[in-house]
């Protein structure tokens, strides 16, 4: 699996979204993306990419698109 496929699978699984809807996924605006959904996302991303997100990055990850930028800080290029 590519990093993009892994990344998409996490968002689809946690937020119960189709791939077509991922680019519009935003914290608090996507139905299952509340604070508990956010923790599920963070946990899944940390496990999948073997990283520990810094608190500032945990808060900054507010959308599907922003997540890619944040992961790049940890050397994970989503492609």
């Amino acid at each position, binding site marked *: 699996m590519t990093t993009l496929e892994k990344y998409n699978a996490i968002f689809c699984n946690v937020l119960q979204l189709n791939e077509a809807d991922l680019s519009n996924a935003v914290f608090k605006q996507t139905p299952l993306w509340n*604070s*508990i959904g*956010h*923790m599920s996302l963070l946990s899944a991303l940390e496990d999948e990419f073997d990283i*520990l997100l810094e608190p500032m990055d945990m808060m900054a990850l507010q959308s599907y698109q922003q997540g890619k930028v944040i992961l790049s800080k940890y050397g994970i290029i989503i492609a």
Partner: protein
Amino acid sequence: MAFAFLNNVAIRGISACVPRHIEENASLPIFSPDEIERVIAQTGIERKHTVEQGTTVVDLCAHAFEQLLHELQWDRMSIDALILVSSAGDYITPPSSNVLHGILNLPETCLCFDIRQGCPGWIIGLEVAGSLVTTHNFRRVILLCGDSATLMKSPLDKESRPLFGDAGTATALEYDTEASPIELEHGSRGKEYHTIFAKAGGLRYPTTPSDLEFRTDDDNMTYRAIDSHMKGMDVFSFALATAPKSVQSLMNQFHIGMDTIDYFIFHQANQYLNEKIRKKLKIDSSKVPYSLRNFGNTGSATIPLTIVSQCRERYSTDTINTIACAFGVGLAWGSAHFITHHIVCPEVIFYDSL
């Protein structure tokens, strides 16, 4: 940072009481099966003991008090002060501690007062109760901490409903010149008071009929104006920023070595957050007990409830070096370092509704 130390104050015992009624998170109607599976995995909370209408923290704390007094074999006439820490009282007035004073048949010489606090409450209560004892003006003080928080939350709030349970606890303090000092650190962020907030029902916004109607806000959360509602990620951010720093500051200030501590008892917020705090402080998991799975977040009761439900045998039989840390409503936080010697620590008891 506000630091304090209290000499001559011994913790003699801790007890806890929860309602017998259990709410299983897996059965909550507001979640789909897939969704609740993830909620349980992240929060670590499978079930909570919850009060039924008509039961309050006064009932739970009264039972915890009676059990503790019995196990300590203390004469109730020897109690010099009773402090109740809770988010809400049975009545607007009088304070619930005075109601409890009557229920518990305490002497007229007993000082009673409430501290209105939630999750950080046990640390704040320990500071206040210990301050009464340290001067020897009050020889025996009982600190009651707990909440019937589920009565204050929206049953439709997906961020609160799976997290919160109800409990009442009692902690007995006694003047003792041989006692190791209790060392504490406290802090507050009042500008963020609205992060955990029940808007209606106080004097600023007296309850109106519309406050009893459920509304869904911009964040897709459904609750009434009378319900206590939290901005989950703001609380998460606050806790990550303050709790590790508080513990580290306490250890630095009082020259406490990490290796000397037997248990770090954290306020039980949720598993994911608490594990972040533990890992940030680089604490071995064997030193950090959890009571979340069966009790959830019980507000100011979580620290004593975790001691009683998870570590009672060791606290009963050994000398235990503890750091406790709590954070939440206010926003406020605090940490405490204390050493206990063979304290009275009976099993959790259950309250049956009448």
